[in-house]
């Protein structure tokens, strides 16, 4: 078990969005989260990834309590996420966006360049190769030098998935990865997610396209009226 959410509740100024949410995710599985518009799915993602504090409840990631940790720390622990509206650096190229998302670069500390420039240069080359590889995975290989702000909405979405892939998170939270994407790309992303699962990653995704999502899911969660209901073995 990689993630355990226990009795999480969230209300905004008296409006109860999440009443009592509990569920667990097994390592190396794909889980879909369904629910009506406004049922609180994105809010749940905000809470898990540390961008919103829950009103109550507990969250454990690999046994460690994370419900009161800030977003940057949760990100470092290995929970990556995409946003329903893709968040990319519009003034930077696709390649730069991907490189920025890759973590634990020895050149994070400028002074390391003085100590061992060769090692960092090699590392940089490796990162770049990886970024290029990922750009093929998400179908943006011919857009590497293009500013992200010039990409279409769907392409920006693909880029944000690419940014998640490069950051080597263990648990990926995807907020409607298929919405707005062409069928061919949906199938490509589905394949990619299955491949990630093979590599041992855990995926939780919000989707409205139930058929496409169920096709690759090990488990389905329904969020209704602030409570989670679970279906196992639907695939």
């Amino acid at each position, binding site marked *: 078990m990689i993630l355990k959410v226990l009795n999480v509740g969230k209300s905004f100024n008296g409006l109860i969005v999440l009443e009592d949410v509990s569920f667990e995710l097994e390592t190396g599985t794909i889980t879909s989260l369904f629910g009506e518009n406004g049922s609180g799915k994105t809010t749940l993602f905000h809470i898990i990834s540390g961008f919103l504090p829950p009103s109550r409840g507990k969250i454990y990631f690999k046994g460690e309590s994370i419900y009161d940790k800030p977003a940057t720390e949760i*990100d470092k622990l290995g929970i990556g996420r995409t946003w329903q509206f893709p968040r990319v650096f519009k003034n930077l190229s696709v390649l730069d966006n991907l490189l920025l998302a890759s973590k634990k670069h020895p050149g994070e500390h400028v002074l390391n360049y003085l100590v061992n420039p060769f090692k960092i240069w090699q590392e940089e080359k490796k990162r770049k190769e990886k970024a290029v590889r990922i750009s093929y995975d998400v179908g943006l290989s011919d857009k590497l030098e293009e500013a992200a702000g010039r990409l279409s909405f769907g392409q920006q979405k693909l880029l944000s998935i690419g940014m998640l892939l490069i950051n080597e998170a263990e648990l990926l939270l995807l907020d409607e990865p298929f919405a707005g994407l062409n069928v061919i790309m949906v199938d490509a992303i589905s394949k990619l997610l299955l491949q990630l699962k093979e590599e041992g990653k855990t995926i939780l995704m919000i989707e409205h396209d139930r058929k496409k999502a169920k096709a690759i899911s090990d488990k389905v969660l329904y969020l209704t009226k602030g409570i989670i209901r679970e279906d196992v073995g639907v695939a």
Partner: protein
Amino acid sequence: MYAQILFNGLVAGLLLALVAVGFNLIFNTTKVFHLAHGAMFVVGPYALLQFIDITSGIGLWAWGGSVLLVVFLAMLIERVVYQPLARKRSGQAISLISSIGVYLFIVNLISLVYGNETKYVDLPLGGSFSLLGITIIPVQLMQLAIALLLIIGVFILMRTKWFLKVRAITSNDTIASVLGINTEKIRLHTMVLGSIMAGIAGCLQLFDIGIDPHRGMSITLGAVAAVIIGGQTSVKGTIAASLVIAFLQTFTEWYISAHWKEGITFLLLIAVILWRTEGIVSFNIRLEER
């Protein structure tokens, strides 16, 4: 004649570029219209003077002391003024006013302690000489060398992952922090780096035309013009614009009058803005993303 103007313009342009690149880095990461940058331009040389006095020589100790003081002050301004304002999400107008306040405080303190007269340091570098019809003062060669070295250093920095983060914060600091980039740390870095560049530029000016406590503002306004003309985010654009401005200023000084130096800078600024609002170096993103 033209060769002389070009040479003088080049030296002045590189000095301006130091101040302007510093302003560029600070402005783009902190989003503060950092007019107190002009104070750093005078703190550097006054600290250098003080340390020359203390160590009775212009060696590494004096330079080191000057740079350290600038670094300390830059960190202080960021941590005590700019960062708290940013955390409170106060707007650019507020941080601009605060920056002017910081500028006035520092400059008036310096003029209180050291007086308002212009200070010089004479370096024993020998008299001017002639080369290809250009009269060159050795101090100018030193200015040229140090400024070039710093700018080359910036170009090297621009190839690092650290600078990619600077550009990320420039582009969108919310997304940057969402991606786990420590924006407050990078802000502090650019404050320190940018201030060192302004401080050293001030020191270099100490050796020829001299420094008084109020010299920082006009060069900072020139730097602001260079940053805007250069396209705001582009370091290369800022350097190019600094050179153009300095050539134009030298030319004006030579053929019209030194009083018109600043006027001409802002005429250029207005002309460029009317012609291209985004500055010279820029690119367009999708209509719906603006």
